[in-house]
């Protein structure tokens, strides 16, 4: 199975960095998320997770390190987390780490809300974003 890598960029839209590693199971979504077609962007990530859970079936570590995302992205991130929860329910080992900018209560609260919505145990860590 192949890795999924998307290089983030900030142009007319803000594309987050995506690094999903099929060998190590360590995945990261970082940067800023405001996209032209949010559903399409995140559905590729969800498809990758589904393929991994069918073909690889090893532990998955998902690190979120976002400094900004719009409400449309927040809906899609919930779908990503639901896919991870599904894997966990099927017996997969899943670890979700949520890194939030230390001065951003809103992004920290998002993780709490995602935990309520998905039942996932999301570990939260503050970090100092680079500008």
């Amino acid at each position, binding site marked *: 199975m192949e890795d999924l890598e998307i290089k983030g960029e900030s142009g007319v839209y803000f594309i987050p960095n995506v690094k999903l590693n099929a060998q190590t199971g360590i995945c990261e979504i970082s940067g800023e998320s405001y996209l032209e077609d949010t559903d399409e962007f995140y559905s590729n990530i969800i498809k990758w997770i589904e393929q991994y859970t069918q073909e690889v079936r090893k532990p998955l570590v998902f690190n979120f390190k976002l400094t900004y995302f*719009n409400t449309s992205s927040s809906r899609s991130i919930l779908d990503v987390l639901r896919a991870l929860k599904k894997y966990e329910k099927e017996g997969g080992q899943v670890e979700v780490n949520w890194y939030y900018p230390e001065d951003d209560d809103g992004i920290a609260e998002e993780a709490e809300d995602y935990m*309520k919505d998905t039942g996932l145990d999301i570990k939260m860590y503050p970090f100092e974003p680079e500008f």
Partner: protein
Amino acid sequence: MNNDFDFFQYYAQLNHEQVMLSYKGPITDVLLAEFSRDIRQKLQGDQKAGKKVFSVFMEMATNVLYYSKEINYFGSRDKVGTIVVAQTDKEYKLITGNMIYTDSAAKLIERCQIINSLDREGLREYKRYLRNNPIENEESRGAGIGLVQVAITADNNIEVKIKKISDTYSFFVLVVNIQKTLPNNTNDTTQNS
């Protein structure tokens, strides 16, 4: 939410406040990206409130971009709207104005009243409810979760004003204020020992 609201008078009054960005015209994604960079740059001195202003600006501006019913028929049929970011001593003020269908007015006012009746925890619950429940129709999408998110991020009530233009169209104004970060914990590093 009265019907006599005069947006243009309101707009003229803004001269008294320090306007950081003021635009009336066709809105495109390219333009929005330019504005967002401009706002970020201007708010570098107030990182914490600046992030909130940026985030609220993005939600409000994309709402205009997606849902304005006024269209400029010159060129690529862009949506038309007004976006203003101003500041007073204590707060940043974000204002958007755009045409909506008169039919949507009642629902928007109702959503706004619900939002303003809720505290932060209530707003988070409401947002989760909207996020978990499928969208009934495209039209209400922006009026739902986006407005709730704006109130959460701004940590403030939102102000909605609607002026009926005709049976079909009404002018919708959204005003959101964000407190500036008070420089209370900043140490004076230039002080000599």
